[in-house]
């Protein structure tokens, strides 16, 4: 029996962290594994830090939230502050290296702290719209919770109707996953 993998994703509203968590959860479920995904939500319609809690394992998942993540991803300076509490000695902490003046705020107790230039890559190489898919690739590489083919199938399921109209979008999304995986691989 594998251990449950616990993931926290946090970013600004609109950065797409909830979609990433949902797609990974769907992919794990399709693999026949147990997954539990819960968003934080409040009364705000936009703005604020958006946090997604995701757990994947082989047995039914326990409490929906947890103290310490195996991987914690923060995509803005506010998200870095907000997610420090989920970091422990076994945590891999991933943040976007484009966030300015955050060096002193990064957690000091993590197993590893990885800065990846996801925002930059999405802007200069791909498209800002696939920023979150780059992050998805990064999470998949860092945790190996789902196979990349299953993640692609889950994206296809969610966005297939858009890909029908514009097949280039499919190519770009799949490229984004691979780039995310590469970014983590080189940072590790």
């Amino acid at each position: 029996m594998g251990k449950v993998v616990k993931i926290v994703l946090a970013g600004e509203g609109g950065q797409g962290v909830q979609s990433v968590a949902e797609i990974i959860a769907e992919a794990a479920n399709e693999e026949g594994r147990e997954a539990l995904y819960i968003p934080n939500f409040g009364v705000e319609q936009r703005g604020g830090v958006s946090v997604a809690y995701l757990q994947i394992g082989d047995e039914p998942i326990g409490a929906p939230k947890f103290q310490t993540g195996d991987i914690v991803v923060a995509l803005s300076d506010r998200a870095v502050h907000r997610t420090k509490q989920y970091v422990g000695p076994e945590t891999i902490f991933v943040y976007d290296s484009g966030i300015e003046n955050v060096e002193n705020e990064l957690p000091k107790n993590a197993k590893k702290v990885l800065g990846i230039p996801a925002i930059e890559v999405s802007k200069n190489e791909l498209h800002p719209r696939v920023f979150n898919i780059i992050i998805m690739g990064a999470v998949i590489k860092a945790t190996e919770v789902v196979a990349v083919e299953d993640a692609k199938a889950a994206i296809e399921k969610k966005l297939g109707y858009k890909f029908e109209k514009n097949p280039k979008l499919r190519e770009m999304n799949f490229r984004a996953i691979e780039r995310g995986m590469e970014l983590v691989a080189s940072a590790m």
Partner: protein
Amino acid sequence: MPEKPIQGEKRVFMTGNEVVAWAALAAGAEIMYGYPITPQNEIMHYWTRLMPKYDRKFLQTEDELSAGFTTVGGVLAGRRAFTATAGPGNTLMQEPMSMAEAMRLPVVVVVQQRGGPSTATVIYSQQEVTMTTLGGNGEGLRVVYSTATHQELFDYTIKAFNTAWKYRFPTFVLGDGYQAKMRESLTFYDPAERGIEMVPTEPYVGKPGMPGVDRPPTHLRNTYNVEEELYEVLKDYLADYAKAAPEIAEYEAFDTEDAELVVVSHGVVSRAGKAAVKELREAGYKVGYFRPITLRPLPVDQLREVANKAGQLLVVESANGQLDRLVKEAAYGCSAEILPMFKPGVGITAEEVVARVKEIKG
């Protein structure tokens, strides 16, 4: 005849609110009455999206008082009817539910608890336990199932209609904002294919035949002129409730036989309780797990047995002692010391329960 909403068994992955809508469809619910409130909204959204295909109905009312009373009306007309609410909406719902108790109407209400008091948070709590079990001006003649997983949300939403129509007490499915919004897997099924027969419904009013000639006249009351008249009716109701209670009460327990301390929790918090007890057992702690599934009526005999065997009960809940009060009433006179772990309006993790038990046990 529209097709059955669920054919065969099917593993699905979705939010709890979506699960409730599907379960109500599978149970043959004919109409939902409702007024929007977070975190319950998507029950209405999914129901309204699904219902045209299966020839069901929906009425949005002007508030929860009205949603409760129209649900009462639907049941009087013999419809398998339900509503869903949360927080301040649940507060308003207590008035019509009190009428449902008075007239023994099998109304089904799904509650997704949010923070309180008042508007508080739209997120989560277990602070609607007192209100859902004992709300309204009356004696709490109602059934409350507290679910912990999406599978249970599905199972107990279906069961709620049967309990309500079998015993004729208003029946609640008590979830919370976490269960409403989180996604996890469960198995859908058609109740009939699992051998679950839906208790038939019947109208309270407008029955065929001449009243007093072909059938006894229908006499539905929630108003009485003299004290004794009310007392006579309530004595019968209370006797019915006491007789039904052991049949209705449900619980889940393990490792209680040799436990020095038993973690008592309900609903989504019991997931943390369960994980904590398993972890503590592996670490050599003599701990057990007890979870009432029905908060009203409570599984009193089983709880008392545990409370006389274990030295300590640790009551864990996302409220300031609402489950604790029910437990203490049921366990009155039992030998166990009852300890609190209360976090009103906040989620509780397995790690926190483990830490608390270690703190107690040293």
